[in-house]
């Protein structure tokens, strides 16, 4: 049960996953398999349902799963409370990490490990080392986790927790957003090392090629309107860069990119972000 026993080969399997938010279907049949040690990238336009997928996996009460299954080594996770999913080896680095005033990162990680029955004696030192690796200053560690952190600081703090908890499978929801150039490199390298040295299975949701250059994904998946419509090797990311999501959609004969409930008076395709180059890297 402990998350760090990654020696053997494990598999996270998502099959025909459907989920709704306030009775509106967002996930429309997601199929995906990730093995420990593999890095997968998931790319899709704003509002296509990527974060919904991450929360449906983790068991957020905001989303109702209406069909499908999520297993680790054949064991069903759906129906388990969030914290038990974590004990089965799942970790989610959130797109918007939540501020918890007065509860510092070390208390969070300490309680998380204590619940698993395995608090290492050198926890403090391990956190300090991981914090150094991604440039989290001591002062930040003393504050409530994420409390008044900048966007980039939150992502670094998520990376520290990921590294110390060392799960079997990590879903990273835009771990790169808000990071400066140096931090992006540090975080990506830390994640890559966790995948290759500690066999963490990684599902990295991102909009930017820069992260993928460092993470070197084994597989790239294109996510449109609540499901994976195309998968391939790293070359798929290059294709996306040329064609945009509209190109892929046209190629596959798909005419819906997102799953947002259309407002009565607005054309959902009027969204200016859709169809624009997803690799308009703000850091470039």
């Amino acid at each position, binding site marked *: 049960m402990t998350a760090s026993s990654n020696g053997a080969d494990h598999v996270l399997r998502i099959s025909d996953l459907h989920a709704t938010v306030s009775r509106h279907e967002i996930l429309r049949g997601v199929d995906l398999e990730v093995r420990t040690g593999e890095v997968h990238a998931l790319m899709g336009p704003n509002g296509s349902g990527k974060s919904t997928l991450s929360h449906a996996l*983790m068991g957020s*009460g905001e989303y109702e799963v209406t069909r499908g299954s999520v297993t680790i080594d054949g064991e069903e996770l759906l129906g388990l409370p*969030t914290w038990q999913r974590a004990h089965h080896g799942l970790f989610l680095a959130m797109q918007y990490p939540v501020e918890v005033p*007065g*509860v510092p990162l070390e208390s*969070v990680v300490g*309680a998380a490990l204590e619940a698993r029955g395995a608090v290492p004696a050198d926890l403090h030192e391990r956190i300090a080392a991981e914090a150094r690796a991604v440039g989290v200053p001591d002062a930040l560690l003393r504050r409530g986790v994420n409390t008044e952190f900048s966007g980039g600081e939150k992502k670094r703090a998520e990376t520290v927790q990921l590294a110390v908890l060392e799960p079997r499978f990590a879903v990273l929801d835009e771990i790169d957003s808000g990071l400066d150039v140096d931090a992006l490199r540090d975080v990506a390298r830390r994640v890559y090392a966790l995948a290759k040295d500690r066999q963490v299975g990684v599902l990295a949701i991102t909009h930017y090629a820069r992260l993928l250059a460092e993470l070197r994904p084994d597989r790239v998946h294109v996510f449109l309107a609540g499901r994976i419509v195309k998968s391939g090797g790293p070359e798929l990311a290059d294709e996306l860069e040329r064609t945009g999501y509209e190109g892929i959609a046209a190629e596959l004969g798909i005419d819906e990119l997102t799953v947002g409930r259309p407002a009565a008076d607005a054309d959902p395709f009027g969204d200016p972000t859709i169809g624009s180059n997803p690799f308009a890297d703000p850091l470039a």
Partner: protein
Amino acid sequence: MTAAFTADAARALGGPEWLARRREVAVERLADVVWPTPSEEIWRYSRIDRLDLGRYRPFAAEELGAPGDERAPGGGPWAAEAGKHAGMIVVRDGRVVHHELDPALEAKGVRACGIATCEDDLVSTLIGRASSRSEDAFTVLHDAFLAGGAFVHVPAGVVVENPILVLHWCEGDGRASFPHTLVSLGEGAEATVLDRFGSPDTDHLVDAVTELLVEDNAHLRYLTVQEHGSRTWHLGFQRAHVGRDATLRTSAVALGGDYARLRSEALLTGQGAESDQLAVYFGDGEQMLDFRTLQDHDAPNTRSDLLFKGAVEDTARSVYSGLVHLRPPAKKANASQTNRNLVLTEGASAESIPNLEIEANDVRCSHASTVGPIDDEQLYYLESRGIPPEEAERLIVLGFFDDVFERLPVGALTRGLRRSVVDKLEHARARR
């Protein structure tokens, strides 16, 4: 309504002449006192309509023992928990039964003794300075039956490093007691005072008054901790006068009692005076914890800050009602007032009523107030790390109180107080 609280009973309490005279004046006022009801703003939402004074009677002189007849050896575990201290006054049912003070401080003129037994004339001139003009009916009742209490005095220029402890124990079914704490700091003096209250699980009425007199340039840190038994009523009135460039940091931790009320007022009387008022409260079962605060600015360049944080569980209730009053002389004053409440179960409730009255120009003033359950997003975030919901809730509640706990004086107590909050949380959860 005041059946047992007669002039004869007050007269029989003995003690020094000045104290007897003071009681007599109060007894006369008592005849005309209008007993409060929740229709008065300052008692709104309170449980005062449930108080039947006829259920209680004051202690007789022979029960309290003669003034100066000191029985208790010391402060027991409470003294130990407070860590290193400079002095201690132990008060039972309103009368001092033990006092001690570091002889080096005694030699410098510091006093930590009983109001009724102190040989200094100082006490008779200082008592009532802050409280005697109170319109609170229970302050009048208090004065009418005041049999003693604690007196802490630090003369001008003297700095007392370690805290002075005032430990109150109130006992006796159907009894009322009238603890008084009078703290006075001369010009430039510095001290920390802990005023701790407790009682067993008895139906007891505590009518307490605290006066904090902080002269120019003096610095007082004051912490009151209330851990009464679950049937005790506590009506606390606390008023501070803060002089020119003086600072006052008061803090309150309220955990016990059936109905426990603290009226805490800080009067900034001198230019540049500052006050910080902090509180942590946690109500469970059927408790009601009630706070009325006043930040009263009556001089230029004064600054006040208030942070009250509470949680309620089961069917407990809390009330926070506070006023920031910037009087005309309070030019360039700066005041802030924050009250935050966690309502942990559906049956519990919290009222929060911040108020401003601004009569001065060129001032800065802010207030904030929140009442709500634990944030679901915070719970989800912690659970996503593998923390079970109960532990996540415990972390969030302790985290919520952390910025107040961090700033409490008498650091030795903080760990135990955090533990008390956790105990209450766990007991309440066991009942859910």
